């Protein structure tokens, strides 16, 4: 009995020892050199594997960091500047701090601002809707409200606002990884610098139609009137495709453009309420375009009042008009007969 145990131990121990020797030499022969710094860099990365840096995952990004001599071209949007300075210290390099960014939605066409003209009842997928038609409003550039961006967000930094029908970016949670920019078929997301104390000014509209149809489709559309362009003292605004664009690097956050915008397409975020002095200015600025805008505003408000009734069913709005025409047509066709 003891012999059996003894022989077993000796045999297995022998096989183990021989294998260990073979494995040692094989490991020496086929050794793959891997820079130990890759592991060290990966250690300090956030392990989100979101792809926001442009690499498939954190490991690949770490490899790229180790290989490059210039860390300035690489950036981990999730970890931000802290993470990149850690990476730099591991690699013995220095890196300049970048402005932190955040995703902003370039559409303010909430259900109150844009009249719904039809209903989409296929799969709740923005790309399918965009391939099918222009959208459930007369604005073919705006948000479709089906939430593909929210699904794409890997950081729970977005939700759909039920009331407005638009996605909302939670600023503190947003890592500017760019997943929503990629996901939106209407290209409504942009990564912009967070700005000083998170203050930002941007044109929240992507409508490139001419002024009249844009305004007709949406109360808060950019109509390409160039007022902000003329007002800006810092050349931060460019006009193209019937819309204004504010360069976040050139913008000095003076808010002059916000005050003159006749449709309210320019948004100011995280600014304190205007104090007494600027309040006067604002009053003046608003007062100037007001007389011209007034009749329009009235019409718009009337349209708004009528809108909720027309909203739920797709064909109701045209029906009402067509019924009137219908009567006329019947008469005319009778005459022909």
């Amino acid at each position: 009995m003891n012999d059996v145990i003894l022989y077993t131990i000796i045999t297995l121990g022998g096989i183990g020892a021989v294998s260990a020797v073979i494995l040692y030499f094989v490991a020496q022969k086929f050794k793959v050199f891997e820079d130990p710094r890759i592991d060290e860099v990966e250690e300090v990365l956030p392990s989100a594997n979101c792809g926001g840096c442009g690499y498939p995952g954190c490991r690949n990004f770490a490899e790229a960091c180790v290989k490059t001599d210039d860390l300035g071209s690489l950036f981990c949007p999730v970890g931000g500047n802290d993470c990149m300075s850690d990476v730099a210290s591991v690699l013995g390099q220095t890196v300049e701090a970048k402005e932190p960014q955040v995703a902003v939605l370039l559409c303010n066409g909430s259900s109150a601002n844009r009249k719904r003209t039809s209903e989409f009842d296929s799969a709740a997928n923005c790309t399918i809707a965009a391939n099918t038609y222009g959208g459930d409003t007369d604005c073919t550039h705006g948000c479709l409200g089906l939430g593909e961006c929210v699904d794409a967000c890997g950081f729970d930094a977005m939700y759909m606002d039920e009331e407005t029908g638009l996605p909302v970016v939670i600023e503190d949670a947003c890592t500017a990884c760019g997943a929503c920019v990629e996901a939106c078929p209407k290209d409504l997301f942009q990564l912009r610098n967070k700005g000083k104390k998170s203050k930002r000014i941007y044109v929240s509209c992507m409508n490139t139609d001419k002024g009249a149809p844009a305004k007709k489709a949406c109360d808060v559309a950019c109509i390409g009137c160039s007022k902000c362009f003329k007002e800006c003292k810092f050349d931060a605004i460019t006009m193209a495709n019937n819309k204004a664009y504010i360069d976040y690097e050139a913008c000095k956050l003076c808010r002059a453009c916000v005050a003159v915008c006749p449709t309210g397409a320019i948004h100011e975020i995280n600014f304190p309420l205007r104090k007494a002095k600027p309040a006067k200015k604002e009053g003046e600025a608003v007062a100037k375009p007001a007389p011209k805008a007034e009749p329009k505003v009235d019409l718009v408000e009337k349209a708004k009042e009528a809108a909720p009734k027309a909203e739920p069913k797709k064909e109701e709005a045209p029906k009402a008009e067509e019924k009137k025409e219908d009567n006329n047509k019947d008469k005319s066709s009778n005459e022909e007969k």
Partner: protein
Amino acid sequence: MLKTFPVGGVHPPENKFSKGKKIETLPLPKTVTIPTGQHIGAPTKVVVSRGDEVKVGQLIAQAGGFVSANIHSSVSGKVKKIDEVFDSSGYRRTSIIIDVDGDEWMETIDRSDELKKDITLSKEEIVKKVSEMGIVGLGGATFPAHVKLSIPDGKKAEHLVINAVECEPYLTADHQLMMEKGEEIMVGIQVLMKATNVSKTIIGIENNKPDAIEHLTKIASNYSNIEVVALKVQYPQGGEKQLIKAVLNREVPSGGLPLDVGCVVQNVGTAFAVYEAVQKNKPLFERVVSVTGKSVKQPSNYMVRVGTSTDVLIEAAGGLPEDAGKVVSGGPMMGKALSRTDVPITKGSSGVLIFKEEESKREAINPCIRCAKCVTVCPMGLEPFLLMTVTEKQNYEKVEEERAMDCIECGSCSYTCPATRPLLDYIRLGKSEVAKIIRQRNQK
């Protein structure tokens, strides 16, 4: 036993309410909106400007390449503006808006009703004429007709197959055209045969149009080279691959064209348009459109000038019914729901279909129950449930591997799915993504 295609297919209720209704010519509209893109292929170049006087049949937008088609004015009057206007795609597209004034036709157009049987033009001249007159496939795909007629060197067409199937439920435009313009269609077919140098033509008609089969067979007896074949009613028999399989029992290979099996397929409406273009010198600026639906007061077939607003047609057919829920351009299976009714009729509009509120709603999407009904009905032998799943997972390599590009978008899968899954919507999405990948690959 009647012929049909062997794989898949469905038979939805036919509901041909506008059957047998004479083709009426609508009074001229006050304005027309003619989109500059009414075909598959390169966009056209506008050759008129604001304020120009145009005549009926005058060229207003020129083809922008070989696979492209000229566009002619459908009315006489003054060009009001060239603007971005909503068309049936639901997007704003460049369109030419013309205020109608009188009805003055180009002098070159032969407006007589007389049947002109002698074909004087040569093969090349016919193809050139078809291209000049802006003829596109009138079955719905709007593929420029001259491209199909220009047979590349080294290929030989043996058969011309005329698609007179009209497999879409509700629509009767082609049916009525056959009943009224049978002689002209036969001459059109002779012209097409001369252009493609084929010796035999087969006209495929589904068996739910016995009067058309009888009528055309009678006329075809005067021609030795035309045969009319009655087919079993089965959707989507109007797909060219299905039609060739049904009438000739030949199978077009995956990714191939009908020409690979020696066939050229043209729609019966196209044959009539070719007759008018070649024999009467008339460009394609009007077509037959069925206006139909269960609650439409007077379902009818109209001869409509391109650019007429859909509203005008709906009014002519008795107005929009009160219980209308959805207006579709085309048939119920492959047609497209309109997001607004003031969009213009184009060369590709075969019908305006109005659904009742209760039949227009799509039902809630339920999980797949693995019944494989979609696989059974797919006429291309694909697995729609799988294509949808892998598209949802964004695994586009797999979508391509599963031959999504073979899908003809007939919608049989979505129609038959007991879990009311939007199969075709996702397959289309998959196809467009795969097409992008293929384009990128070809660029490299």
